[in-house]
């Protein structure tokens, strides 16, 4: 399984903070492609979003980053701390 997390406006827009998904994808890109099929809000947040931020196992990642069972993948908007 892969642990998928959504933060801030993404959590609100997608209606969930986290979920466990089967580890059936080898890259973030392919995971996004599947999630985008859930509906327009998923497509907008993840697939069409030029500002999408991605982390894999707490490190900054991108669409090409490889993923495997046990990984934690997070999706979020640009950060605004400080």
């Amino acid at each position, binding site marked *: 399984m892969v642990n998928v*997390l959504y*933060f*801030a*406006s993404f959590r609100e827009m997608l209606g969930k903070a986290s979920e466990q998904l089967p580890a059936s994808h080898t890259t973030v890109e392919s995971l996004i492609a599947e999630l985008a099929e859930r509906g327009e809000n998923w497509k907008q947040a993840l697939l069409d979003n030029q*500002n999408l*931020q991605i*982390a894999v196992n*707490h*490190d*900054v990642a991108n669409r090409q980053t490889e993923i495997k069972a046990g990984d934690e993948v*997070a999706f*979020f*908007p*640009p*950060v*605004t*701390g*400080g």
Partner: protein
Amino acid sequence: MAPETQQSLKYPNIRVQEEDFDLSTEVAKLREGHTDVGAVVSFVGTVRDINEGDDVAVLELEHYPGMTEKALENIRQEAHQRWELESSVIIHRIGKMYPTDQIVLVAVSSRHRENAFYAAHFIMDYLKTNAPFWKKETFPNGEERWVDARLSDQEAEKRWK
């Protein structure tokens, strides 16, 4: 062991907490055992009561536990590699805050002032664009808005490349 305790053992110079902090106490701790320090520079970020022209009543800070601490520690280590520093600490608050509250503290010590000035500035610029925190504003009428990332913060980071 609570997750927060695990994080604080792993990264003793990084703190992500709901509680407020006291600048004098933190600077005293930073200097403890460093008798060769000749300069301490600290930055405190505070909650404004106005943003993008709108009155702000409440500011709520969300973060990504685990990644936040790691990202902050990476930034701190990078500062130590770039400049000769004696010690440094980063404290970032989370949860609900109100105008005039303190949000963030960056404090660094070094033998000479230039390194401390540069390092504190660098850490804040990198924190703004690399640490996974998100701000949500609540206006006096109860409406909420997620704060948008600023292009000026992206530009500020670039000056250190």
